[in-house]
């Protein structure tokens, strides 16, 4: 009897903890026949998107470990990556050397932005997410100032393919034709018509290994400690502020790399707006994979990318099939992405409050029993 209850408790717990992935699996199953894509097309698309996105999403893991929540400020890294790509394009360095150079260039920029973001986040402990989110827009403005006005007269940009003829500012799109998929095509193999970007996956694998290894280092352990209880960690002599800043810097640098990988796959980017949606889609994908604001694993990343992008690919066609209007599917997938983040945030906040009141409820019960006895 008790076991049965336990079992039921476990199942409902499992359901509760994995509500979002289960919902998504259901959506995908429903959409699949409606969308009518061939399996090979679908798999091809998903593999491409995995190569494109996973690195970016992995960059979110470290701040979660350090208890700083979903790093909405990862967009700062994406901007750094874009600036690096702009330089590389201007200098006409193509192929893999170009990508590597862009990554190297992005490091100091990302680190600087991460430092700034980390410092500010230390001022608003407990509300890191809203700050990171607003930093996006603020730094986004600075980025536009640099890209649209300072590039040319102040920051030398020579090449006519990206600079506007008026002498300052960049064209609305930066073309990366010669960088396009240079990572993806290296050692790429085709399995039954599905192109697998081996090198990209190797890089992703390396980052996964790094993260696993990092959790076992002193710094990783410190981050976990800081993430769970800042005061205790401080009392034990861990430099809390510094550790948190390092976490954000690492995340920002990885996000910069991730954005470069993402853009080399796509092959061009809108100069001013390429970064704006990145944060949202990455965070939504991670949450779809079953992560929460305070807990995320590499498994969540992979599952999330697959589920989220399956939905993303199929939603417009499925929407069109149901309603006869492709736009509905388009809006639906945007709605779902936002909805997932909203749901995760609400669950996180209510859980935080419930944890507090639960302790009280338990105590009350114990006293009640005690009260009856005496």
């Amino acid at each position, binding site marked *: 009897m008790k076991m049965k209850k336990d079992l039921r408790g476990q199942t409902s717990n499992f359901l509760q903890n994995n509500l979002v992935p289960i919902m998504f699996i259901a959506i995908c199953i429903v959409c699949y026949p409606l969308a009518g894509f061939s399996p090979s097309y679908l798999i091809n698309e998903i593999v491409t998107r995995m190569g494109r996105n996973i690195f970016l999403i992995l960059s979110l893991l470290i701040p979660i470990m350090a208890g700083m929540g979903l790093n909405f400020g990862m967009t700062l890294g994406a901007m750094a990556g874009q600036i690096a790509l702009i330089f590389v394009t201007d200098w006409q360095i193509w192929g893999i050397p170009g990508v590597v150079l862009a990554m190297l260039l992005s490091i100091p920029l990302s680190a600087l932005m991460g430092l700034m973001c980390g410092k500010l986040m230390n001022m608003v402990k407990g509300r890191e997410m809203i700050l990171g989110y607003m930093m996006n827009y603020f730094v986004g403005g600075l980025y536009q100032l640099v890209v649209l006005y300072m590039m040319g007269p102040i920051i030398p940009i020579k090449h006519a393919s990206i600079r506007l003829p008026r002498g300052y500012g960049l064209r609305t799109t930066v073309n990366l034709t010669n960088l396009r998929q240079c990572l993806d095509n290296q050692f790429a193999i085709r399995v039954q018509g599905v192109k697998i970007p081996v090198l990209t996956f190797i890089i992703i694998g390396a980052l996964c290994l790094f993260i696993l290894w990092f959790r076992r*280092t002193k710094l990783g352990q410190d981050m*976990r*400690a800081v993430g769970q209880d800042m005061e205790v960690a401080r*009392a034990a002599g861990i430099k809390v502020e510094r550790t948190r800043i390092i976490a954000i810097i690492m995340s920002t640098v990885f996000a910069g790399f991730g954005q470069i990988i993402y853009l080399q796959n796509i092959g061009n980017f809108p100069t001013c707006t390429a970064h704006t949606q990145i944060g949202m889609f990455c965070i939504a994908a991670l949450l779809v994979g079953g992560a929460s604001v305070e807990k995320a694993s590499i498994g969540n990343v992979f599952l999330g990318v697959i589920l989220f992008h399956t939905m993303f690919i199929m939603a417009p066609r499925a929407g069109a099939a149901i309603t006869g209007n492709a736009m509905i599917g388009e809006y639906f997938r945007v709605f779902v992405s936002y909805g997932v983040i909203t749901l995760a945030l609400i669950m996180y906040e209510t859980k935080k409050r419930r944890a507090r009141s639960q302790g009280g409820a338990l105590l*009350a019960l114990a*006293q009640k029993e005690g*009260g009856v006895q005496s």
Partner: protein
Amino acid sequence: MRGIKKDFFGNQVLTDINFTLEAGQVLGLCGENGAGKSTLMKILFGMDVIRETGGYSGDILINGEKAAFNTPFDALAAGIGMVHQEFSLIPGFTATENILLNREPQKKNVISEVFGDRLNTLDYKEMDRRAAAAIEKMGVEIDAKMIISSMPVGHKQFTEIARELSKDQLKLLILDEPTAVLTEKEAEALLDSIRGMAAQGISVIFITHRLHEILAVCDKVVVMRDGHVVRDVPAGQTSVDDITRWMVGRDVQSTAASIETKAEAADAKIIMSIKNLWVDMPGETVRDVSLDVREGEILGIGGLAGQGKLGIPNGVMGLYEAGGTVVFDGREIPLNSPRKCLDSSLAFVSEDRREVGLLLDESLEWNVAFPAMQIQDKFLKKLLGGLIKWRDERAIHQVTQKYVDQLQIKCTSTTQKARELSGGNQQKICLAKAFALEPKFLFVSEPTRGIDVGAKALVLDALRQFNRESGVTVVMISSELEELRQTCDRIAIVSGGRVAGIRPAADSSESFGALMVSQVV
């Protein structure tokens, strides 16, 4: 320790503390709240507060050498470990990880050679070994692989002790009320492990309110009162009664009891009757309290910190979850509803001025008038036949000015922000707020906490005057027994969340002291 003196802004809290402790000895330290135990330990442990408030005088000698600790880390390095009352553990870590927090054994690797030691990998085998050794040393079995958040409270406490023991240099361990959260059996195990540690040459300072534990495990007992060491005797030569007497005993002059105890109090009618009250207030749990309050009296509620005396008013007034029955003036008052209490002309001055008592960022006028405005529709002008209730700024100003004058509140004007006042004046504003409600019954919780002597007398006088002149029944909760004895007619002592006894204020301090420690949990 020799001649330790410490004052907080001129308030002498420690005077000439001298005692010695030999290696492998266990010293029991006891005394009432506010006797100076914690301050003394903070000095010993080099806590930041001490330095921030102007340091201390006197010397601490360790192994014959003078030691001065500027931070807890200095103290740790010198071999002093402390287990605080609050747990300092990372909830999601295992016992092993917590025991070795920030002192993990590490292995170098290629990357850390380049980027610095923080990228060393942890040596998990060595961690397990050291944690096991520390647990072994303590002599109590706990599961080193268990996550802290799923441990019972006792095991958390043991993990903390094991953490201190895992430090190789540990010579002196301070345990601040370690048995408060333990069950009988766990406490036994802890006492055993204290004996074990002493046998291994580690000195222990053991602070507790459970006096029999001191007798069971300590070599010597130091009793403190009002910042003095009043007794320093070998544990074998004393008894619980002796210690109790030393703890609360006062000089003859200061035991002047309540100035004007009401003689007729005994036959006055009972205005509030509390039955089987339990309150879930963290740190101040109340269990099954029954208490009658007579009309027109000042009833004191005393007891040691954490024993539940604060839980009573907070529970009755609905600020913390509570159960039981409270009958006021013949009618039962529903619990967990502050509004209903206030509607029945009860008022409460909270012990937590800054969080509960005041709107720190608003004017004094608002602070004083707000509850009365909301509860009793005072200070409002009714416009359009009562449809709109408009704030009457003039009336608000008048009432605030009245109390500012009456209670001698020092402020630049009645529109000053409450945050800018001193503690004593803030407390007076809290009183004014309650007075403005013109209640029939007033709970006052720790009215003199954190305010200076002059303000203290004024606050107590104001309360007494309010009681005697307006005939308002007052229940005053305070940790300071003398203050209660001077102000109240009767004093109830709460111990272990229960009422241990009610005595007239004129009773001897010793009898109250005995009640205080009678049911300590």
